[in-house]
């Protein structure tokens, strides 16, 4: 596990500044218009400026007060949760819901808890029956059940 130690106020300030900057930059490429005839760029640029200023204030206040330590950002939860969700997105159309659930359950064993194969198998069976049963068979949501080649 890598731990990144930095100051949360400074980082969030920088984050707001950069998003504000992007909003101004991209927003300015749309027609700005005049106050009595606002173009699509007017409000975004206004918000971008506000975000930029707030970001500067957050970062600057931090420089004065010092701020406290940043809680460690861990890799494991990101990999497991985002991996599972992205896997669902990529696999659902190809593998169908049942096998996709299998992949997600397998991915979840990486979350750090002690798991055993029996428990995971039961979990998979429960989800693989209940979820397609309710959503695909019951509610008719358009989702493939099984892989098709």
């Amino acid at each position, binding site marked *: 596990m890598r731990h990144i130690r930095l100051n949360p106020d400074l980082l969030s300030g920088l984050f707001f500044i950069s998003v504000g900057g992007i909003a101004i930059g991209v927003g300015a490429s749309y027609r700005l218009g005049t106050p009595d005839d606002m173009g699509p760029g007017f409000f975004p640029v206004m918000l971008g400026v506000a975000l930029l200023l707030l970001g500067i204030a957050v970062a600057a206040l931090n420089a004065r007060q010092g701020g406290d330590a940043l809680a460690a950002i861990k890799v494991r939860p990101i990999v497991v949760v985002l991996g599972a969700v992205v896997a669902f*997105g990529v696999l659902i159309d190809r593998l169908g819901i049942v096998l996709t659930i299998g992949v997600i359950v397998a991915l979840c064993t990486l*979350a750090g808890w002690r798991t055993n194969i029996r428990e995971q198998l039961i979990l998979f069976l429960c989800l693989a029956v209940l979820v397609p049963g309710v959503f695909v068979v019951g509610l008719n949501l358009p989702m493939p059940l099984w892989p098709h080649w």
Partner: protein
Amino acid sequence: MELLNHLALGFSVAGSAENLLYCFAGVLLGTLVGVLPGVGPVATISVLLPVTFYLPPIGSLIMLSGIYYGAQYGGSTTAILVNLPGESSSVVTCIDGYRMAQKGRAGAALGIAAIGSFFAGCVSILVVAGLAQPLASVALAFGPAEYFSLMVVGLLSAAVLAYGSLLKALAMIVLGLLLGLVGTDVTSGALRFTFGFDGLFDGISFVVVALGLFGLAEIMENIEQQYARQTVRSNFRELLPNREEMRASWKAILRGTALGTVLGILPGTGATISSFASYALERKLAKDPSRFGQGAIEGVAGPESANNAAAQTHFIPLLTLGIPPGPTLAVLFGAMVMFGITPGPQVVTSHPDLFWGMITSMWIGNLMLIVLNLPLVGLWVRLLAVPYKVMFPGILVLSCVGVFSLRNSVFDVVLTAGFGLLGYVLRKLRCEPAPLMLGFILGPLMEEFFRRALVLSRGSPLIFVREPLSAFFLLIAAGLVLMLSWSWFRTQRRQVMSEAG
């Protein structure tokens, strides 16, 4: 008399067999969500949205709001029995509620929480019913300038009442407003911030934002902390407080109800803040404040009444002004829009059956909750024994299915993962996601009202201070910001929270 007619209409809607069933399903799910830590109402409502496409709008809104206030109830059960606040609004209940349980008075604590909540629910529903119509008729006369300023007040008060730094909360609101603008601009038809992705042409779905920022980020945090539940062992015989405990509590219930009712109307984290405020008030008024923290029943009765009252009156700004006061109701706002009902003053006149049906269903739901909670306490406690490692894969699968079935878009699923990452990182940066959610929902509306106001005034921003009501709202907004700089308020708030946390 008119009020009685309206309530009668409401009861005839909410009392239909079908709607009673939806109400029951809602409060049952809500209690479940409230009992289980790591599963929040925001994520639950978002996951269930695709299901509600198949239900009539009134039924689904009754169910979704049932989840919302049911969660407040359920949260207190685990707070008392196992010292785990299922919801943030029951954090203070842990302090004295759990001590009471340790002393063998768990039943009394649960009982007084249920009685207080039910009483508070009854009072605050009357307040909602009484205030909604006059407020809505005032709001019907609002022009774009008034609406814009009102939204400024709503968002600012959400920022003031949020945890942590005011500046960060403000920045999160602006970030949310910006995210709300993504997609096709209604007025000009221009595509904004889509960066070439087809999936963004219709804007970002509020379900994607809510599930990512709240649902997924919560799971990530729980995995990080290797969240494990203690084994639960509790013994309680009688579920009713004795006479002495009732005498000690009834005033606290009254005060908590009053406090919660008032605070709930203000946008912001109403239920949580009002339970903290009620706890502080009870301790201040107690003859012997040292009892607090040692199992004082007022410390359970007051906050539990307050958070339930606030949860109900939270519907006032949503249903009469069209301003979602918190993240859960922001999701409900999105759901109403999806059903073709724009939340706001016109709901009362154009959909009276829906409006009064929803309000009376809350009373019915409260009654169901008291029946559900007291006898089923044992079941809820046993549910806590299901380990999180078995639960979260299911939550993940349901979240994915929920997002995907919205519009069968793989892009939405991947975008949800992106918002999950954003939510996780923002939590690490001590930025609360709730203000972002509110900004996101209000973004397009605010732009529209801002644009219309300036068209009316031929481009002069002075219209916002020249219209008396709008000026009044902006004055309140300024007052809110000043209030935060009022050091007493800040230290008081910090003190209460550090004791609770």
